[in-house]
């Protein structure tokens, strides 16, 4: 029988999910559900918005108000939702291609505005849904179906990108470190402004196979043995950091939240009218 968590937060009739065996997305989706449960957030008040890609399919499985939108645009849709209904807990689940390539502009501007939505990136360094093309997070030198001679692009670090754009909460989790990642998502949900948790997933089917990373279990073990903290990363050279995953918080700061600031304008105008 399914666990209590699944019964409550997943749409059982739409399971099993379409993700490949060994995919990290199922673990990350469970982490999101667990974080919502731990915080006791009213299920009716959660609006989950996603775009297009493997990660975005989570919207169909999770039992919240869900909107499965267009490629890259989830954050922009979520911005409209949050402005119209600031009382909702607005969560975006997005993949690396979705949020950092086609949707990169929405990401940086939502971070700059500090609008109160929580973005959880299921980052597997590849376009999985379309069959393994290199993404903006695929490391240089790795392979994809559109990088048959090795990727010459330099990858984004989505967390560093969001932080540079002004996000007030930024963290990195991994599929392997579920307990820590749940905690990081909880803190992101609790955070008042824009928050982003960049979670390293695992794509054994495309990324793993194309780059000879072994089985899903091998990739999971690699993630376990090669995860460092931001503090450790600071002391390492670029070469030493290559191939490492980071776990922890990069930014946790307090800036005015956008919809709150807008409400102040409405209140001020109302007051002036009296």
């Amino acid at each position: 029988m399914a666990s209590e968590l699944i019964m409550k937060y997943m749409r059982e009739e739409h399971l099993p999910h379409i993700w490949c065996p060994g995919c990290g997305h199922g673990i990350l989706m469970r982490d999101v559900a667990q974080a919502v449960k731990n915080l006791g957030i009213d299920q009716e008040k959660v609006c989950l918005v996603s775009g297009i890609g493997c990660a975005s399919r989570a919207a169909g499985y999770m039992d919240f108000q869900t909107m499965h939108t267009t490629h890259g645009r989830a954050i922009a849709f979520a911005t409209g939702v949050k402005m119209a209904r600031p009382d909702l807990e607005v969560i975006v689940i997005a993949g690396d291609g979705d949020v950092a390539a086609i949707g990169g502009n929405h990401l940086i501007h939502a971070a700059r505005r500090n609008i109160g939505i929580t973005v959880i990136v299921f980052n597997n360094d590849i376009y999985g849904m379309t069959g393994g093309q290199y993404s903006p997070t695929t490391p240089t030198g790795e392979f994809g179906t559109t990088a048959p001679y090795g990727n010459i692009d330099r990858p984004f670090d989505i967390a560093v990108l969001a932080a540079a754009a002004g996000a007030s909460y930024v963290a990195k989790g991994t599929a392997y470190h579920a307990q820590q990642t749940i905690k990081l998502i909880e803190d992101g949900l609790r955070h008042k402004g824009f928050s982003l948790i960049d979670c390293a997933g695992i794509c054994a089917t495309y990324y793993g196979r194309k780059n000879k990373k072994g089985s899903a279990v091998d990739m999971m073990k690699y993630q376990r043995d090669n995860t460092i903290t931001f503090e450790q990363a600071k002391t390492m050279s670029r070469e030493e950091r290559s191939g490492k995953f980071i776990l922890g918080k990069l930014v946790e700061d307090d800036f005015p939240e956008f919809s709150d600031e807008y409400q102040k304008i409405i209140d001020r105008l109302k007051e002036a009218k009296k």
Partner: protein
Amino acid sequence: MKNRVLMQGNEAVVEGAIKAGMRFFAGYPITPSTEIAEQSAVRLPQVGGHFIQMEDEIGSMAAVIGASAVGTKSMTATSGPGFSLKQENIGYACMTEIPVVIVDVQRSGPSTGLPTSPSQSDVMQARWGTHGDHSIIAISPSSVSECYNLIIRAFNLAEKYRTPVIFLMDEIVGHLREGIEFDDEAEVEIIERKMKQRPDTLHLPYHVCEGDDVPRFHLTGYDIRYNITGLAHGPDGFPTNNNEVAGQLVTRLMKKIENNIDDIVEVEEKFCDDAETVIVCYGGTKRSVMSAVEELRAKGKKVGYFRPITIWPFPEKQLSALPKSVKNIIVAEHNYGQILLEVERVIKDRKIGFVGKVDGTVITPSEIVKAVEEVK
């Protein structure tokens, strides 16, 4: 109380939209529609609504759909290049049946074109701009007071038929300033979205009740949780690969408009009853045509005009019903012949002439007079 003020077309759109219940606007600066964003930024917080300037046109379109999905009447405004960028998400609104109003103040193109010059060259983009088969409603105002009245109608039709409605303006009307009378006591029909009531269909967001053409709303964010997707979906709102269900969905999206043409389509006809020549025009072009027709009537010429107020669906029934006296039709529009194609499709037994302009200048009354006088 009656109140007569001088107002610009773009400003009247905002006042009408607020009257219709608009409480969210997302936009991006672009000539010649920018005043709509500026005025929304001023007016919306005054009525407890929200304005946001998004990072781009695509994001603006996404944000208005998001806001409408959680129950807030929403609008965006743009012009040619921005209208092109909005197309993908307009398709999303068609597929998910989220009511939104998109104002396109047309300017000269293609590409950046002549940003401050009038044009009507987005007529076909309004109909076919987003990919896939879909229905659409487009309305074109000819005066400042019509900007006010017809934007209310645009919101009403969007809510009633759960569809994006394109408010197809042009630079002529957008930047026109003229007197407009507001009457506080006048009754204005405002249509609100129909809500689900039958408990057995509450969990089926896209179930259509008997006698309805569109699913009733159950708002995201309230007591029932459901899914919205741009993928083909059944009444339960979840993705499906079932060809029969997908076919039924697209058919219903087409039929909900096609089956209600009499409710949706509006035209204006003047002096057509005994006319030998009828000029087909819309939007700002009507103003030159009206002037030309008056001049020609004074000379004893039997001329009238036919104006689609609803551009899409095209008023083919009304156009076909022109009296037998009409021997010639002249289409006047600020493009290379877009509505002309529709007129040619509908009218088979009369001579059809054309007056078009693509250089960013306005068709003058004398150019229309000349075209009518040259008809053999």
